[in-house]
């Protein structure tokens, strides 16, 4: 494999178990996938299917119990080092919980620079202003506190923070699910623009198939911690999934009806057995 072919992210047989003994819960069971550089890879699934846990496992925030993960060919050990932080960053789901309520936007954005010893005071100030401008926020936001911002503005700040260290890979954990519909499109388009400008690789987790279809080139459908199937966005748009579960998921996304819901529930019951 040449350097150009090295996948940005390679995950093999990943499993994550929370808790121990009788209370152990296996959130992810033997998941494998590869993400090419510059790609947007989607993870879809219902609540509790383990899609967010995959992201947290990559960032070292979830207890990995098995499998291998590589970032640009570099295997990930137990601890994440400074180089990892400068390559991989994450945007969290809830912008109301991901910004420190007692720190100004300026403090939040300049912290990664201070930690990694980048620039002096002047340079950091410039980079904070540039990062704010990048996500469409004016300089007047710099010294505000999160409570003075709307949800969409907070998520823009969270995105700016993820980009402060100029990472190559950004993991997006349902970045729009906590936002109003009108703001969702704004944030998604912002993410698309930033990807082109910074040459980023995204892994996007969402339960919203429309969001995935809008953003991703390839996607994987997850259920009960396993991959049900991997498909391209063309297959998704054409509505030609291989698996029954995916078809039901697609049906469900088109709108609610009693018959579909019953079929879905019946399938769930079958799974349980």
């Amino acid at each position, binding site marked *: 494999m040449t350097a150009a072919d090295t996948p940005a992210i390679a995950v093999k047989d990943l499993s994550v178990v929370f808790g121990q003994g009788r209370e152990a819960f296996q959130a992810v069971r033997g998941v494998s996938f590869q993400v090419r550089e510059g790609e947007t890879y989607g993870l879809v699934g219902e609540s509790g299917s383990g899609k967010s846990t995959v992201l947290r496992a990559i*960032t070292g*925030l979830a207890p990995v119990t098995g499998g291998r993960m590589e970032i640009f060919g570099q295997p990930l050990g137990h601890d*994440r*080092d*400074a180089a990892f*932080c*400068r390559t991989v*960053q*994450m945007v*969290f*789901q*809830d912008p109301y*919980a*991901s*910004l*420190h*309520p*007692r*720190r*100004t936007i*300026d*403090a939040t954005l300049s*912290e*990664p620079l201070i*930690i*990694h010893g980048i620039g002096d005071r002047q340079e950091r100030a410039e980079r904070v202003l540039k990062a704010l401008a990048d996500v*469409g*926020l*004016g300089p*007047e*936001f710099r*010294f*505000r*506190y999160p*409570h*003075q*911002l*709307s949800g*969409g*503005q907070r998520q823009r700040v*969270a995105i700016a*923070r993820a980009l*402060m*260290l100029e990472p190559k890979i950004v993991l997006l954990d349902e970045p729009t699910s906590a936002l109003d519909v009108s703001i969702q499109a704004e944030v998604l388009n912002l993410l698309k623009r930033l990807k082109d400008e910074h040459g980023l690789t995204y892994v996007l987790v969402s339960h919203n198939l429309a969001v995935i279809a809008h953003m991703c080139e390839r996607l994987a459908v997850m259920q009960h911690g396993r991959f049900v199937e991997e498909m391209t966005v063309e297959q998704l748009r054409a509505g030609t999934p291989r698996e029954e579960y995916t078809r039901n998921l697609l049906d469900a996304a088109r709108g609610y009806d009693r018959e579909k819901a019953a079929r879905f529930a019946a399938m769930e019951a079958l799974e349980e057995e």
Partner: protein
Amino acid sequence: MTKKGNDRSVPPVPEEAPSGAGGLRAWLESDAPTSAFQARCVRAWLTWLKFSSNPLAVTGLLIIVALVLVAVFAPLLMTHDPLAQNLSDRLLPPGEKGHLLGTDGLGRDIYSRVIAGSRITLYIVGLVTITAPLFGLLVGTVSGYFGGWVDIVLMRITDIILAFPKLILALAFVAALGPGIGNAILAIAITSWPPYARIARAETLTVRNADYIMASRLQGASDARIVLAHIVPMCVSSVIVRVTLDMAGIILTAAGLGFLGLGAQPPTPEWGAMIAEGRKFLLDQWWVATMPGIAIFLVSLGFNLLGDGLRDALDPRSGQA
């Protein structure tokens, strides 16, 4: 403030703080601070507005401010030497021979002694506040953040200290270290940190898994940075509130130690020791013990009212502050 467009239209705030009172107010209420300093001032101002809308809290603050002023200007306010004895003028009732609050069993002016006592009270309160809560905060946040055996060891030590009655433990410490105001302060500090550690630990447990902590860990922040820069600020306000509410108890413990003869030693005009001396004359010369008692009562009340007001103003769960 839900639409981005609205915020954009805020006029730019001048770089320098304007001098006029109206200008200062606008600067303090600015929606778009231009420096970290201004952002902090705006926040302090909002907290103050919330605090000052509570008349009881302001009363408490006024009492404490009065205590500080009295302590600072004690030499100017005293009419007599608080240590000078005059046996021919002993146990004079209030108002007689220029003694505003009367004299005690050795003919010392009670008014001057109460004034001089304010310095000692403030000294005790000040030293205890900068030692016990800091130590408790550190123990609590470290214990809550790291968990595991660190948590177990630190919390069991906390439990052990907490299991002793406070005054008795302080008595034991003073008895071992020898009587005196310095040792009394030390004993009070040693016995009063565990509740702060408990509070700080509880707060830490609620924030340690928050997304913003995860985010800064993902940015490569060290454990020390996360504890000191991210977790401690979240715990400080509840600890401050608790400290203010405990202040009355600290004053009473100090007075109690003084009363038992283990705190300030005679002839130091410490309020608790003064009550102890006045006890002998309580029925016939009530003023000797009552005047320092009123002083203790007022200061304790002041701290309690202040603490109540601070709790409302600093409540970390109210979202605004």
